[in-house]
């Protein structure tokens, strides 16, 4: 993992928006379990489930004000829309890792 990025927290663009505070907190609290699912699907080579999880994360992250997570999840989803060859599989691994890293940096503070 790129340690330099871990230190740099990722904040919702709705920070300070009273309507959203609680929702953003819930989303951030649920992120570890989403990360677990992503990792689990990848290790088990369950690519349909992985694509679905990435798709939902794309939508949710965008909605809660984390566009970088949303974009990263979109990359995973797009890679999984067609059959995978070896080089694409490596790309999927890379992009999922990138997505997980971004999620770990998210904070509701």
């Amino acid at each position, binding site marked *: 993992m790129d340690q330099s990025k871990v230190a740099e927290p990722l904040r919702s663009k709705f920070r300070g928006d009273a309507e959203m505070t609680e*929702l953003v907190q*819930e*989303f951030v609290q649920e992120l570890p379990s989403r990360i677990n699912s992503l990792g689990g699907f990848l290790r088990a080579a369950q690519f349909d489930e992985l694509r679905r999880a990435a798709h939902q994360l*794309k939508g949710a992250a*965008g909605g809660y004000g984390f566009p970088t997570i949303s974009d990263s999840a979109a990359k995973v989803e797009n890679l999984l829309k067609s059959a995978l060859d070896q080089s694409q599989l490596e790309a999927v691994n890379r992009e999922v890792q990138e997505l997980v890293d971004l999620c770990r940096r998210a904070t509701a503070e």
Partner: protein
Amino acid sequence: MTNAPQNSSNQFPRVLVIDDSPDVHRLLRARLKQEEIEIASVMGGAEGLAEIKNSRPDLILLDLDMPGMDGFEVLRSIKDDAQTVHIPVVVLSGLASPEDKVNAFDLGAHDYIIKPFELTELRVRIRAALRLNFLLRMLSQRAQIDGLTGLWNRAYFDRRVQDEVARVQRHGGALSIAFFDADHFKSINDTFGHPAGDAVLQGIAQVIQRESRQSDIACRYGGEEFVLIMPETNAQDGFAFCDRLRTALESVVWPRHPERKVTVSIGVAGSSNGASLTASAWVEAADKCLYAAKKGGRNRVVLNNLDAPGVQQGQPPMLKAG
């Protein structure tokens, strides 16, 4: 009070959200909390269609990319069904390709909102869709209402009488139809002026509306002629009710011409067992009775009891002129 045209209830408009993501439901509820709307949520296309049929929402927010039945399919079903085709659908989607937008609009979508939602845009688009829905409804109701009297108009009567006669033919049951005509109406116009004539038409409409039941359908047929559809009412009851109306109208004192009474002639056709008559035959039978009431001296009710064929004018009791 009769089943006259009414304004829609003053409840908040109901918005149905169909999306497979719980996050979208949560976000929408948070973002639309201040809006004067009532939100219902379902998680899938098939479930959404069932809910639409069941609750007839005022607006549908529809996700396109759902597992199982996707949004395009849901949209197609909504727009294929005469009962739901008029409900505006705003598509919510992260799919932003021009083809998807064109497809959604071709299928009858009212608008398109890209996820993630931009807050103010979301609100104004929903308001705009609800406003359009409100205006369309008002327009379609206005097109069925007689402007002078506020009763249903002729076009509405023509459609509704078909429905009521068809219902009786299918399921049996009673039905009566009555034609009313103001007596010597031309002379009221000629003597007291057209505003007085208009006031008479409004007054007759008011009495009919006030005296009839919720299930009765009061319409202005044209000119000084009115028609009342009385579901679940046999010939005798229809006759008795119309005679009460006749008496009530006879006793009205008209502010513009207190010295001049206004009477009505009424023709009723009724049956207790769903006579196998077409709508036009019912109308014709009632109209003939009206003609007989006029010929018999006006200010009276003439009944044709369709259960007893051959029994025609003035049988049973026919009222004498007042």
